[in-house]
């Protein structure tokens, strides 16, 4: 089984989410190989979980004034602020049959690749069920998975740098709560690569690439014409629409 690797690329939130779904559809139809994808977000964006309410979780007005996108994911999980150059996101999209049937077990397999990648830059981390990866007890990576038509899609972020105040200004937490105490408490629970190793984003990407491809036959590839067309269609008909993003 040869994997396709789509190298680190930067796109907006709608394209990023649409691409994951387009690849997932192509794999479900037997028209694409299992795929590992690395990407970043420009402009920065907030993604919310499938079952969250945009208005409950995100300060939409502030996003608009900062030029930050907001999008609902196909996957469950929580709201995430994807800062420009603040993280590396990955997607693993493949037939379900390549992974354990149990959801937590399959999280463990793919999160293991993140753990392997972080160890390449000298950071020791552990998978913490349900869907987190911790360094010294603090979250460095959040992950979310969905399965559809026999295809597994898991995406997740690896925090490279962290700006808690910016995160709080965008995620919907009342101003009173953005006290020093609150920020301190988040800083106690969340960490990022730069707080453990002074490595470049490029070095982190190379390390993750190594962790994700270890023991696999793979080649670098690109999206097919069909996947590009489907991505473009999904951006317009789903991910940029009010109906989808404000569904709940």
């Amino acid at each position: 089984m040869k994997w396709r690797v789509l190298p680190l690329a930067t796109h907006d939130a709608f394209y990023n989410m649409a691409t994951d779904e387009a690849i997932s559809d192509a794999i479900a139809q037997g028209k694409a190989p299992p795929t590992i994808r690395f990407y970043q977000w420009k402009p920065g964006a907030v993604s919310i979980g499938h079952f969250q309410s945009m208005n409950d979780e995100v300060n939409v007005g502030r996003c608009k004034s900062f030029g930050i996108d907001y999008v609902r994911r196909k996957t469950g999980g929580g709201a995430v602020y994807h800062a420009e150059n603040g993280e590396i996101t990955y997607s693993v999209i493949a037939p379900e049959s390549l992974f354990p049937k149990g959801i937590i077990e399959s999280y463990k397999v793919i999160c293991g690749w993140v753990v392997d990648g972080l160890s390449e830059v000298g950071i020791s981390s552990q998978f913490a069920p349900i869907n987190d990866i911790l360094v010294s007890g603090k979250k460095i990576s959040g992950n979310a998975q969905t399965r559809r038509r026999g295809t597994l899609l898991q995406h997740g972020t690896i925090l490279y740098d962290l700006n808690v105040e910016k995160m709080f200004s965008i995620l919907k937490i009342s101003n009173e709560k953005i006290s020093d105490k609150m920020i301190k408490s988040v800083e106690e629970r969340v960490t990022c690569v730069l707080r453990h190793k002074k490595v470049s984003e490029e070095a982190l990407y190379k390390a993750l690439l190594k962790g994700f491809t270890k023991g696999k036959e793979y080649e670098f590839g690109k999206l097919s014409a069909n996947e590009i067309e489907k991505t473009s269609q999904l951006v317009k008909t789903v991910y940029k629409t009010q109906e989808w993003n404000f569904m709940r």
Partner: protein
Amino acid sequence: MEGMARQKIPGGKLLTVKITYSSKIDSIQLLGDFFLYPESSLQLIESALVGMESSSTMEELSSKVAQVVAKNEIEMIGITPDSIAQTILMAVKR
């Protein structure tokens, strides 16, 4: 009447229930950072709860959710039928 309750399920995820009710549950929304497979099945659970007596017990609510889960082979991660029932009871002021 309208009600809302939110709780972090021990060992699980955050669950919010938004509900409108009279003698029966008129509408209900389950929100949060949980996982549910397939995702579209959340509507089945919400629809099954609409029309139930708003005085239903935790056992009755939990049993209704569990029936939908079993019938539709739904997998829940981070929430359970019991935790949904418990949060509904918190949202319905008695």
